[in-house]
């Protein structure tokens, strides 16, 4: 085969590879859904971030409106400081709340934003004041046991009062 034919074939080979790469990146993965250029930063402080990871989605009413960009620990208040990148056109009132929720039963965790009722909106760099931490299984179990113990404790005086009345 002559030289030019070989070079054309190799060129087509590389183009095919790039097409495959584009297919994988755009159609089979999550590139192209959110660009970081037209977004603004919001901060949120949580007592416990649970299993939240960087690049987790930020959703409002279930629609993805941003990404988590960094998670650090505040050394003074010992709270987790989560930086969110939110799309430029989506604004939230200053009393909006942020919660850490789980998608599905066993899915990844994400940050859910619920809008408040104030007239002023959060600007770039503002901190979301109302936050709710992730659900920690151990706290849930201990709360359940405490409630059970409290119910058992409050139900015993009733038969004695009935007996004393008589």
């Amino acid at each position, binding site marked *: 085969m002559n030289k030019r034919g070989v070079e054309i074939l190799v060129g087509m080979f590389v183009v095919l590879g790039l097409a495959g*790469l584009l297919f994988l990146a755009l159609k089979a993965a999550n590139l192209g859904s959110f660009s970081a250029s037209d977004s603004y930063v919001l901060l949120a402080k949580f007592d416990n971030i649970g299993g939240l990871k960087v690049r987790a989605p930020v959703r409002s009413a279930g629609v993805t409106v941003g990404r988590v960009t960094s998670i650090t620990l505040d050394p003074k208040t010992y709270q987790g400081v989560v930086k969110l990148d939110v799309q430029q056109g989506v604004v939230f009132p200053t009393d909006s709340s942020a919660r850490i929720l789980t998608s599905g039963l066993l899915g990844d965790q994400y940050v859910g934003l619920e809008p408040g009722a104030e007239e002023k909106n959060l600007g770039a760099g503002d901190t979301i004041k109302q936050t709710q931490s992730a659900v920690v299984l151990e706290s849930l179990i201990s709360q359940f046991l405490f409630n059970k113990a409290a119910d058992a404790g409050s139900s015993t005086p009733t038969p004695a009062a009935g007996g004393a009345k008589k």
Partner: protein
Amino acid sequence: MTNPFAWIGSRTLEGLRALGHNAWFFVELLRATPAALRRPYLVTAQIHSIGNLSLVIILSSGLAVGFVLALQSYYALVTYGASESLGLLVNLSLVRELGPVVTALLFAGRAGTSLTAEIGLMKAGEQLAAMEMMAIDPKSRVLVPRFLGGIVAMPVLAVLFSSVGILGAYVVAVQLIGVDDGNFWSIMQSGVDVWRDVGNGIIKSMVFGVICTFVAVYQGYETQATPEGVAHATTRTVVISSLSVLAMDFVLTAMMFSTH
């Protein structure tokens, strides 16, 4: 075997010598690379012979692996009612693991053996010695273009394997089995991260390309100059490439996908 300690000692020293020889050869290849890049057509011709001519086996294997993955995953997932996540499972399996590793194994078998046999026959026919006589460095004229060709071709082949596999799984899952079309793509798209999954898979395939091509070129160059020697070298290429790829895959997976 009169003295087992002497046997162990000599085998260890032989292993260390081989490792050192490999390392020295790698450095020699790197040193000869600038001279080889002055004739880019050499590299292009090798990419054609290594990459283009491997397309048939890689694409058909990718298609077959995609079909089978879709079928098997469906039977496993439908017991848990998770059959809609079929696309996600197939994609992650292909892009993270099967794409780079199976492509590397096929590459070692098809391109690695042809490289080793070609270079070994050149050595057996004293062509490499003749080149040295004419003051042409056989490393930069013969070996480095093949090395660079393999490094370029391997990631492309791995990406094509994964893409064709996903398309094959789509055909089986949506057209044949009846998984929902929209769910197939949307659950896949939301679950696969470009940098973490696709990007790491490409890094893996580049590392495997270097390993397979280097082993093939080294075994070809160091073969005994007899037909028997060439046959042994070809077998050694496939065995050493495959084992190195699988070991390296474990190391890379532990580094890239650990959850800490």
